[in-house]
């Protein structure tokens, strides 16, 4: 990794940037563009930020390698990636992850079963709303790792799939 090189993940995309200090400013190379950036923390979590000629008060919160940034009316989450994305971009997610923590109310498949893309696998209830977790691709169910009635964490694998493209 070259000095000043930074890899970010934002909006599901991997982005490579380069930062160069230039006196009070930093020049950030994003794709074809070079942006002059000046930031000053006016109070914890509040930035005065000037990018080129655009001046905004920005709010941020940092969790290790992730920064949540409110800029010009919208909130964004940007994470630092350890490595550049491969030539084909990020590897597709193999496992089906539970999108949110909640109560596992129903498991709709059994080990060994073939499932089609989009077929419901299980149902999680959180905040009184049912969320159906579906198969992202045609596959076979290898294992079911939790039982109805259990609490499951966000990101947990409840149904393990194998095979598929």
């Amino acid at each position, binding site marked *: 990794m070259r000095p000043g090189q930074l890899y970010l993940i934002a909006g599901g995309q991997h982005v490579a*940037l380069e930062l160069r200090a230039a006196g009070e400013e930093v020049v950030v190379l994003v794709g074809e563009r070079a942006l002059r950036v000046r930031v000053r923390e006016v109070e914890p979590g509040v930035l005065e930020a000037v990018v080129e000629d655009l001046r905004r008060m920005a709010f941020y919160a940092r969790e290790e390698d992730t920064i949540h940034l409110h800029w010009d009316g919208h909130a964004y989450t940007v994470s630092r990636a350890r490595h550049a994305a491969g030539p084909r971009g990020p590897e597709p997610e193999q496992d089906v992850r539970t999108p949110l923590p909640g109560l596992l109310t129903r498991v709709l498949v059994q080990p060994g079963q073939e499932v089609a893309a989009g077929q419901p696998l299980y149902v999680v209830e959180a905040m009184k709303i049912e*969320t159906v977790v579906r198969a992202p691709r045609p596959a076979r169910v290898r294992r079911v790792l939790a039982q109805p009635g259990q609490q499951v964490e966000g990101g947990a694998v409840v149904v393990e799939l194998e095979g598929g493209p």
Partner: protein
Amino acid sequence: MVGTVNNRPPFSKVLVANRGEIAVRILRACQELGIRTVAVYSEVDATSPHVLLADEAVCLGRAEPEASYLHVGRIVDAARRTGAEAVHPGYGFLAENPEFAQACREAGLTFVGPPAEVIAALGDKDRARRLAQVAGIPTLPGHPPADDDTLERAAHALGFPVLLKAAAGGGGRGMRVVRDPLQFRHALASARREVVSSFGNDAILLEKYLQDARHVEVQILADRYGKVVHLGERECSVQRRCQKIVEECPSPAVDTDLRARLGEAAVRLTQQAGYVNAGTVEFLLDRDGCFYFLEVNTRLQVEHPVTELVTGVDLVHAQLLIAAGHRLSLRQEEVSWRGHAVEARVYAEDPERGFVPSPGRILRLREPHLPGVRVDSGVREGQMVPVHYDPILAKVVAWAADRPTALSRLVHALREYVVLGLKTNLAFLLAVVTHSAFQAGEVSTEFVDEAFTSWHTPDPPPEVLAVAATVLAQQAPSGASASRAPGDLDPWGRLRGLRLP
């Protein structure tokens, strides 16, 4: 009866049987009237704003609603032990549960809402429909609750699309529009499961679905002595899957004449039902100005602030005074509507993943303070938003002398609303309220589901990447930073000129 803060408080102490923004709203109203307050909470809510705001707070139990905010016995017991005279249920949870109203009455507590019998009669959607028919108010063709086979036959007889509705409860829970006959069974099963978890009763009724209609509802106030006044309508057509997300007062589709007719229908129905306290009669309004009865919500509505801002009537004050037996001194001809108000509901949900609830910790919170903007909020910075309850965080309500200015104020307020750490629908709300159809006031209940099918959260612009990179570059990647000595080896040393912590 509208401004009585100088008078003797209607109650000495009130328990608020709710959480979040509505509990905060009611606690504040009590404090304004000089009433001492009791909050109740579940274990995960111990440091929530509503708990911190009240004079006393009683823990009900574990996080699960059944062990806390839905536990009639524990709430009544908390009211008794703290010496509360009245219980305000807010909306959701036990607000439309006649057993709860009855349990309060039996414990000698005043329930801030209609009598249990009226809640039961109007809460049963099928009975409410028949009451409306008796009152001469048009209803849509439908079928009362029945088993799956009967309902499926009835749906075919009515003709698709049809609407499935929970016979008990409200708030759009369990509501499904079924357009495809082949999807009917699946939708019915899913609706039954959803309502049984919300209301403990899986009865579903059927109604013909009216296409291209508006959802318009009328706010009423009724005292114990048979007097009912209406405070005009709210337009609630902006819904995502039958859940309201943006509401306004007045409706762009309602003129003075229609307002009078809607109001008169709402007053007639609630008067006949023996209604007491604040209530809302919901209607569907078609393109020709014909309206059809939908249901009565026997409680304070989420969207009540738009009516308050335009009429100047504080509905929670009114609820408390009516519950204490005060006469409604407000006369119908005194009710006037000034300017325009519009509300947007801020939810902890992830628009990128089908609007699934997005619980988590609020790392940074900055609510907007702008002219004409009211924020009813139930959260604070640093709070964990729990997974167990409705994901509403706050409501942003903008008022102005005219609709375009109110919308502009709302847009600016939503843009200045900073919630970091969890996903919210703020960007989606902005997309909705800046949409040309909404700006023109030309929306039906299908607007959101049709106009935003391919909507996705905005990608970060280069400026965001640049600022984020600059901040992230203040420290080496975690794991590497601790072991690395400062100095020339530090690839980030060259950025030291930055004035960041």
